[in-house]
């Protein structure tokens, strides 16, 4: 299978995170030969999503493989004399302070000891590394523009590890690519159909069960495939760069999305819904009539604040929260606007930044629904994969491959390369809970909640709660992601918020009365390295044809990744269009034939039942509702 892998490429991309995948797709669209490599056995790097068992083995890897030092000298034989090797890291140091808690009751037939160990273990720091290391050799030749880089995969695998290196090749041949694309598409479809059809009986099961029947850990394990747990928790702004890119490049057909249904706020110990769209304000029961008017008036102003400079110019020097106090807004409304709509804090942004953020939020409203955000079904980890589709996947080891451009994701660099880099950290927590933080008639809500930092200097925590219909968790549970910029370890940063919003499962089992807060079934904390905004100069000794992709940033949207991908793409392919749509199959000239071959036969009967309205959003031209 691997014998016929070409030995020369235009671009080699190492890492399958979102920016890398976008660049690989863009380069391939522009006709470059791209080798896309990932040493992990899953897509996405730190952008990945895992099933429940997947996340458990991801955690395990961090424990077991922490000390692998497995120098394989074979690759060195292939380094040519005029080339210089850059060692890539075998350890992934991007994840730290991993702690796991299980609150769901453990079944009797389960290994009690192991469960106990798991609980005890929670305070220990587990650091892991990827099992696979790639090494590259590099030596600038006399002619800089023609310099070659050889990419080398170690032939020897750790015997214990069944890891495989996933190689992806963009088939540059027209027919090949076409076929593959269709193959993949049908495959993807049938997979999802399978998924949903399988889901149905399960759903009935849970519904039939009486409410008292609580979810146990073994149920979670059993239903582990229902989970798609994202390492990064992000949403798509419905007018953000990523949506634009997905539409422009037609990659959107590989993904389905759901609209976030609610924006929530946490105020005075209570979770409440933030009315942000016109329909929300109209339907809101918590706002008075006058507040409705105030809020709508202010939001309408924000939509085109630039046109009314006299209304905010005098306040440019002060913070946005101070500015809000000067407006006709009740404290209630000021809180909503500051924390839930502009999503900033008391001190973080000035008037203009706040207005800009508010405008951006409002600008995204209504494109696909009543909130500005979309979530990809099956998790954020789907997105890098979308850009990776239509390629062949090959397991490949031990071959010398040459390329002009080298794109490396930050986590692959060795300590030597990064010794001077100052990384920030992201605090992350993933929870499985038994109900929503704000109960309503519908149990299929997808919510985002911002909890402002309590003391000055602490950061706001972003909470995203996903319901089972996002295909990220099993029936009867919610998957909750917490994210903030780290000031301490993830648990130290996030536990206070978790305690405010949830109660551990065990405590409440004693009392029989209805508890207000959702109960925690399982919790995971970890810190992730934030390599965004790191200047290329901070890395040691990078050759000019090696480009760096950063891992995920802490922000809510994906704009950073897209911007970075576009910037790097322009370096590799100056003056090329970034991710143009694939040509219409009808317009592709095969064998140089001309137009005569096309039979345009008269058939005015439209393709009936084009599409029945689906629950999920498919991207397209949504803005055409008019009367």
């Amino acid at each position, binding site marked *: 299978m691997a014998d016929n892998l070409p030995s020369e490429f235009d671009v080699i991309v190492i890492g399958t995170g979102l920016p890398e995948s976008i660049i690989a797709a863009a380069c391939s669209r522009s006709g470059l030969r791209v080798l896309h490599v990932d040493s992990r056995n899953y897509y996405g790097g730190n952008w990945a999503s895992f099933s429940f068992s997947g996340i458990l083995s991801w955690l395990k890897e961090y424990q077991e493989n922490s000390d692998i030092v497995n120098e394989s000298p074979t690759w060195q034989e292939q380094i040519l004399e005029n080339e210089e090797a850059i060692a890539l890291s075998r350890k992934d140091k991007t994840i730290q302070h991993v702690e796991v808690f299980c609150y769901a009751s453990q079944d009797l037939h389960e290994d009690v000891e192991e469960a106990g160990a798991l609980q005890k273990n929670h305070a220990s720091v587990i650091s892991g590394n990827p099992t696979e290391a790639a090494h590259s050799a590099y030596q600038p030749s006399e002619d800089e523009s023609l310099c070659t880089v050889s990419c080398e995969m170690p032939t020897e695998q750790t015997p214990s590890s069944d890891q495989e290196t996933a190689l992806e090749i963009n088939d540059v041949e027209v027919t090949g690519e076409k076929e593959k694309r269709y193959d993949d598409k049908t495959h993807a479809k049938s997979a999802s159909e399978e998924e949903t059809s399988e889901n149905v009986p399960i759903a009935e099961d849970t519904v039939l069960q009486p409410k008292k029947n609580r979810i146990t850990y073994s149920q979670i394990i059993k239903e582990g495939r229902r989970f798609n747990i994202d390492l990064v928790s992000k949403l798509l702004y419905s007018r953000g760069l990523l949506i634009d890119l997905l539409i422009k490049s037609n990659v959107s057909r590989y993904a389905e999305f759901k609209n976030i249904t609610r924006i929530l706020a946490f105020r005075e110990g209570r979770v409440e819904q933030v009315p942000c769209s016109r329909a929300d304000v109209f339907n809101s029961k918590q706002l008075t*009539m006058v507040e*409705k*008017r105030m809020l709508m*008036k202010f939001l309408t102003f924000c939509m085109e604040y630039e046109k009314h400079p006299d209304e905010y110019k005098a306040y440019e020097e002060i913070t946005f929260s101070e500015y809000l106090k000067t407006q006709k807004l009740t404290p209630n409304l000021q809180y909503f606007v500051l924390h839930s709509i502009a999503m900033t804090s008391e001190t973080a942004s000035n008037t203009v930044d706040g207005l800009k953020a508010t405008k951006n939020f409002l600008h995204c409203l209504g494109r696909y629904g009543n909130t500005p955000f979309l979530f990809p079904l099956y998790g954020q980890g789907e997105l890098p994969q979308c850009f990776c589709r239509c390629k062949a996947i090959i397991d490949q080891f031990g071959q010398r491959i040459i390329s002009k451009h080298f794109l490396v994701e930050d986590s692959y660099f060795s300590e030597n390369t990064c010794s001077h880099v100052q990384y920030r950290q992201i605090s992350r927590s993933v929870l499985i809970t038994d109900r929503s933080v704000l109960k309503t008639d519908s149990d299929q809500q997808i919510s985002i909640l911002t909890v402002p930092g309590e003391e000055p200097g602490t950061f706001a925590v972003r909470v995203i709660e996903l319901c089972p219909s996002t295909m990220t968790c099993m029936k009867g549970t919610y998957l909750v992601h917490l994210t903030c910029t780290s000031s301490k370890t993830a648990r130290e940063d996030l536990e206070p918020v978790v305690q405010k919003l949830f109660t551990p499962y065990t405590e409440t089992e004693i009392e029989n009365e209805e508890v207000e807060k959702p109960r925690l079934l399982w919790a995971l904390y970890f810190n992730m390295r934030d390599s965004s905004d790191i200047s290329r100069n901070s890395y040691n000794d990078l050759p000019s044809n090696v480009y760096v992709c950063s891992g995920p940033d802490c922000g809510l949207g994906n704009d950073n990744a897209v911007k970075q991908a576009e910037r790097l793409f322009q370096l590799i392919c100056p003056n090329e269009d970034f991710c143009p749509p694939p040509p219409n199959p009808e*317009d592709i000239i095969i064998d140089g034939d001309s137009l005569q071959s*096309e039979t*345009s036969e*008269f058939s*005015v009967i*439209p393709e009936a039942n084009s599409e029945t309205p689906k629950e999920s959003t498919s991207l397209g031209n949504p803005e055409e509702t008019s009367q």
Partner: protein
Amino acid sequence: MHGRLKVKTSEEQAEAKRLEREQKLKLYQSATQTVFQKRQAGELDESVLELTSQILGANPDFATLWNCRREVLQRLEAQKSPEELAALVKTELGFLESCLRVNPKSYGTWHHRCWLLGRLPEPNWARELELCARFLEVDERNFHCWDYRRFVATQAAVPPAEELAFTDSLITRNFSNYSSWHYRSCLLPQLHPQPDTGPQGRLPEDVLLKELELVQNAFFTDPNDQSAWFYHRWLLGRADPQDALRCLHVSRDEACLTVSFSRPVLVGSGTETLLLMVDESPLAVEWRTPDGRTRPSHVWLCDLPAASLNDQLPQHTFHVIWTAGEAQKECVLLKGRQEGWCRDSATDAQLFRCELSVEKSTVLQSELESCKELQELEPENKWCLLTIILLMRALDPLLYEKETLQYFQTLKAVDPMRAAYLDDLRSKFLLENSVLKMEYAEVRVLHLGHKDLTVLCHLEQLLLVTHLDLSHNRLRALPPALAALRCLEVLQANDNAIESLDGVTSLPRLQELSLCNNRLRQPAVLQPLAACPRLVLLHLQGNPLCHAVGASEHLAELLPAVNSILT
């Protein structure tokens, strides 16, 4: 760069498209021709269905072809077995759906669907409701679909409560939805029928309050959205005034009976029959309007024969029965009296509350409070200002008169495009107030001077007025309805901008008319005055016609009966 797909250039693409279009057009035209030929030849068979479906599939707005299809289907109905027909109908329904996808607002397609469903022995209405719901999900303001939904809901006898819940769900999604609000206004009276004795079409107070809250949410959220304001107005003023005879007046001198109605009617048109009983025996009379024109009017009159007015009896009773309006009234002419009348004791409610009904005044009061609150936040919102004015009038027109006038001023400033409409509305309200004041005082003299009036209305209320002062206003005409003032003796209309006098005609008692400082240009505009038998004094100073050569002679010729014409 290597590895690129070869694709057609844009010129090639354009050329390919052009050729394709040309080809399509050719086929479209030939198919149309074939259909027309077959129709003419009476070959209404399935091939016509096939051909028309090709054309309508591309252009569902081709109404003639839908007719063609109906002809074919009707013919096939007679020929086919029930099973074949069922299959045919199924295809037709599917085809209609595909046409609606091409154009969801095609009149022809929706109509055809109505027609088809109406002919089916066992139509599947549930499916049709589902179809509507789906199309309304795509565009919640598609009134074609709303229309069809109402048809389906009626046919399927869907409980109004369910349909109301449906409008709820759509208003929740986007309250800017005229159709949805309108549907509510149809459903709510069905859901809450009033006892027979009460005024029809009104809602119980608790329902009304709930609706008011809902609609308030809408206009506080977006005060510029008209749909909510329209619904608000419907909520507050839905009761039609009950048909009534407002006033009967009988005059011995003119041998004439005058009747004033609560709404304009066309007496003698078949539906509107008016029976007159004089001293309890029916009398056949000829009814006419005061200005002699046969068209709907508030006031009708008839000449009475001398026998019904003779002085031998102590009194004559005149009993008028309006059959269509189920109303009647009686008045008495006493011996020795020149005239007699009967009029409802004037209350504002009966006279002018037709636009905003009198609900419990607490409801109106609280509506007024919230509108004023909104107005403070949105001082320039015209809908809010207008609603405040209407609410004030509904509550107490006289008490709020001054405030209302101030709101009118603000409203005119923020909505200059409708200044003339607002002037007229303001005139109407001022006139109503004056009439009320006059009636409370029980006098027959009405002063309407210095009020900035631009238009005269409610003249049918002034049947008994003898002295009318309209001076110092902005009137441009004395309209035909003025002819209803059968008792008018003195009319002052100085200092206006009057150009025409159509209404100053056939006024049996008019003696004195002042028209100084107006815009009467030609003596000919005074022609209507010739029909006022008792007119003796006419003031015309300060009109353009005074400067015309030979004006006095012309006037003397035109109005020989008028003793003094001052120019």
